């Protein structure tokens, strides 16, 4: 079996593609980017290394729940995102770790703007990925969203996938 070599540019393109998929509300495709044991988490603000047993996370999704999350948001009864908000995700300062490792770590800064009912909210922070190569394609094993905010004010909610 030959394993395709992954270049830094492949990783960067993968991240940009994820952002585009989310901005275009192709949420089932987003969930499909994850491995079967993939996870998606948003730890408490100011304590990104908190234990999920002793601290309350915002989001702590296993593979099933991130799929539920994606599918829920596509329903008309996910009222907070119906009609869908308009979003713009920007990823910057992308740092790609060792490309030969079994798990490739990547981190980047992000700003995600969401507008709905003429109110713009902005989420700022850092994304930390663990990527693997599966069936000759990159896949997300773990995605962690570290919010660089003081609180969720005035955003009030994380109804989007960040």
């Amino acid at each position, binding site marked *: 079996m030959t394993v395709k070599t992954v270049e830094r540019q492949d990783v960067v393109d993968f991240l940009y593609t994820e952002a585009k998929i989310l901005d275009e509300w192709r949420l089932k495709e987003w969930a499909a980017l994850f491995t079967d044991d993939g996870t998606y988490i948003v730890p408490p603000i100011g304590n990104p290394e908190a234990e999920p047993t002793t601290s309350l996370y915002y989001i702590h999704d296993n593979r099933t729940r991130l799929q539920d999350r994606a599918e829920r948001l596509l329903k008309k009864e996910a009222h907070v995102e119906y009609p869908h908000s308009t979003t713009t995700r920007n990823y910057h300062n992308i740092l790609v770790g060792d490309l030969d490792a079994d798990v490739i770590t990547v981190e980047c800064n992000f700003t995600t703007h969401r507008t709905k009912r003429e109110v713009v909210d902005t989420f700022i922070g850092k994304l930390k990925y663990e990527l693997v190569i599966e069936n000759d394609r990159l896949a997300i094993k773990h995605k962690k969203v570290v919010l660089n905010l003081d609180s969720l*004010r005035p955003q009030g909610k994380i109804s989007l996938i960040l």
Partner: protein
Amino acid sequence: MEIIQDNFEKSEFLVNRRVFSDKEILARERAEIFSKCWLFIGHETEIPEIGDYKRKKVGGRNLLFVRSHDGEVRALFNTCPHRGALVCREDSGNSRVFRCFYHAWSFKNDGELVGMPGKDGFPEDFNDEGTKNMKAVNRLESYRGFMFVNFDDNAISLEEYLGNAKEYIDLVVDQSEHGMEALGGVQQYSVRANWKLLAENSVDLYHGMPTHKTYFDIKQAQDPNLKRVRLEGRGISLGNGHSVIEYEAPWGRPVAQWTPIWDDDFKKVMEKMKQRLTERFGEERANRIANFNRNIVIFPNLVINDIMAVTARTFYPTSPGYMEVQGYALAPKGESEKHRLARNNNFLEFLGPGGFATPDDNEALELCQEAYNNNAEVQWNDISKGMVRGEENALATDELQMRSFWRHYNTIIQQSLEKEVAHQ
């Protein structure tokens, strides 16, 4: 101004929508409610050790919730007695002293002034009366770990204020033999809506199905045998504006109602837990603790919801159309790691800014607030559901619990309005 119309003959209860958008009303709420009622400041387990502190915003004030050197918990106004600067700038920590950076006045963690530069410029008896200490809120009282402050020195005691609500707080706390603890990571969020809408929403079961259909869809997919979601139970007015709904839980509860998303080992753990509850409290009370949900509102702004997990939330209006919310998770002390993770998964599936339900509540409240732009022509909210049954027979899906909030609210604000008329 007529705030409510409480018409038993017609079984109709109306609330004037101006109370959600009027700045004068907010000023009255600040003076008569947020300066005179007991307000939740935090849970005692947030500051377990001597010197532990947390900054808290309560009733619009900046407070320092601290366990002082003498072991007493205090709520200090976080303002320097000298020129007023915020003394403590860290959100939380442990310290023996707090020092204001502006002129370097220092205070012990009970608020006592212990030093300032240029002492020779002040008389020797400068602080003999203690007026240069950081001021503490005079009234801070606790009920089973829940700590409250009151800015009115003449207020009735917390226990008297809570009254009948104590029974329901007991049912929440009694699920643990070792007491409850607050988890780290209190969720700090906001809603662009009037604060009273969240008090209503937190004890509103009527909205459950239409607003949270997507959540119930997911629960039913996880457990095809999920009881038909009947949400049967009662709505009860507890006096002083407090109220509760208590109803059969359709979903798994970490204490102690098993659901098929959890494994068989867990089933045994839960059976044991239920058995122990029965030993402690008898069968009826054990059933209530394990198999029933409780959504409690403590007037004016504390909600304790013992549902698929336990949350406490408190909220405060910075303007008529915007509130700041603090969301806590509470759990039994000493819970196993596996059990705690199951509990937290339950919590996050429904609750909080990233849950599958709370953001939809947030949206509902914001849409109400936005549409109150029509208040001049469309003046009244309807809160009549169940009145026709008689208030003693209210169902959990009725609106008695909201009427009881509004009746108390109306008494307070009407008195305030009348006082003003008397002054003129």
